[in-house]
């Protein structure tokens, strides 16, 4: 399962407002779920 998200950080927004530069887009890093942890029982 792949997820995406959209975000412009406050710092980037500040840059946009001050005219120093404009990013092509917000920097996106999507992610997938981590593995589940399966539990086994040790045989004493």
């Amino acid at each position, binding site marked *: 399962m792949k997820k995406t998200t959209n975000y412009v950080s406050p710092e980037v927004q500040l840059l946009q407002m001050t005219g120093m530069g*404009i990013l092509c887009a917000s920097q996106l*890093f999507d*992610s997938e779920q*981590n593995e589940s*942890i399966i539990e086994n029982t040790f045989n004493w």
Partner: protein
Amino acid sequence: MKKIVYILSVALAAAACSKPESPVTNPEPQEPVTGKVEFTAVFGEAPVVKSELSGESVLWKAGDEISILWDGGNTTAQADAAGAQANFSASVDDASEYFAVYPSKASVSLSKGALTVGIPAEQNGAFEDVNIAIAKTTERSLVFKNLCALGKITLSRNDIAKIEFKGGEGQSLAGDVTLSINGEGVPSVISTASAAESIVLTPASGDAFAAGSYYFAAIPGTLNKVEFTLTTVSGNTILGKASANPAELLRSKALNFGTLDAEGAATTMTLTFDFQGDALEGWPTAAQAANTLESKTVTYPLDGTDYEFKLHFPQTSDTKPRGVYWGYSDSYGNRLLLNGKFKYAGIPAISGYKLVKVILWQKRQGNDDKEDVPAVAISAEAPATNPSSTASMNLVSGGDRLTWKAGLGKNEIGGPYTYNLSGTEEGTNYYIVIYNVSKTPSYVAGIAKMEVTYEKVSE
């Protein structure tokens, strides 16, 4: 300095853009751009499979911190909110690939594209701290994969201060592992530096672990055997639990070892009884007149358990005050005194366990031991009358007489004198006995403390 680089980089990046954009939807993949970036990471949508782990979620908590590394730099970032998904803001340089490691307290380094992560040998048992996970991306996807194998243990007591875990000889459990990461982002250990063959857990706060379940992380692998050692806050009770069965420590799996300190669970128990403090209630504190000698059973509470000592002293022929007692003198302080030939201090018997080792530390009993040498052995019995000779004593195998040092200084501790016993039986009292074969025997020994080890008898 970092900030300056960042601002310039953003400006340069902006020059390449065709138009300003606000937050977008369904963006096309972007080339990495230097500057403040947002990592969004999911850390366990369905956190666990087993309900036992449901309280130990692998969800992000606000403030969770990850390390982010790239060729030539690294930084950390914190989760902005709790949940299955969280945002991480960080200033990063342009790079072809990024690595992320959780938690940030894990030591990390990156060299020629190879990530090295420290799996600590000293841990605190908290799932959130031991569950090291890594992610690698050449684009912008952070897919966290677990690095370690986990061990789960449960404590029923509230006074365990330290837990040590070991595998077989030469088997590494922790260290700085350099990883190979396959196409699916799954890490495997290709080499280990600063390898440790044991993992030690101590509580993150306070002196002892509260009863409950705890976790440790280890390098994945198959252990030939396993061994736990649990030490109480006092240090006077050490529980060992060992198995010769192999243990499969698999990456991203938790191996549940169950409750280690349940009654009867320990395979070994080592107890230390110290007689250098004030005498405990019920213990005799002085010699008794020869014609009034009376054996006693007394109790020594240790870490919540009452242990019984059987003080046994058959009549002596020299008509002097004798006995076994927790005596004090201004010169030599407190110590357990065995006063008189064939006087016996019965070591506690524990049901289901046999006595296998006795270590005794000596303290001066008085002026008399300046020249005389007390001799102490471990006897299988405390006879009702004095043995006719030392040769007729029933000593335990390995409990033969050791000659103790004479003329100890006031604050000097003699020993340790170690008796490795064999052929003992479970739930049976064995006795420390004094006798002497020298020409001028003192017949008195002072014991500062004793350490006794028991082994569980197979059912």
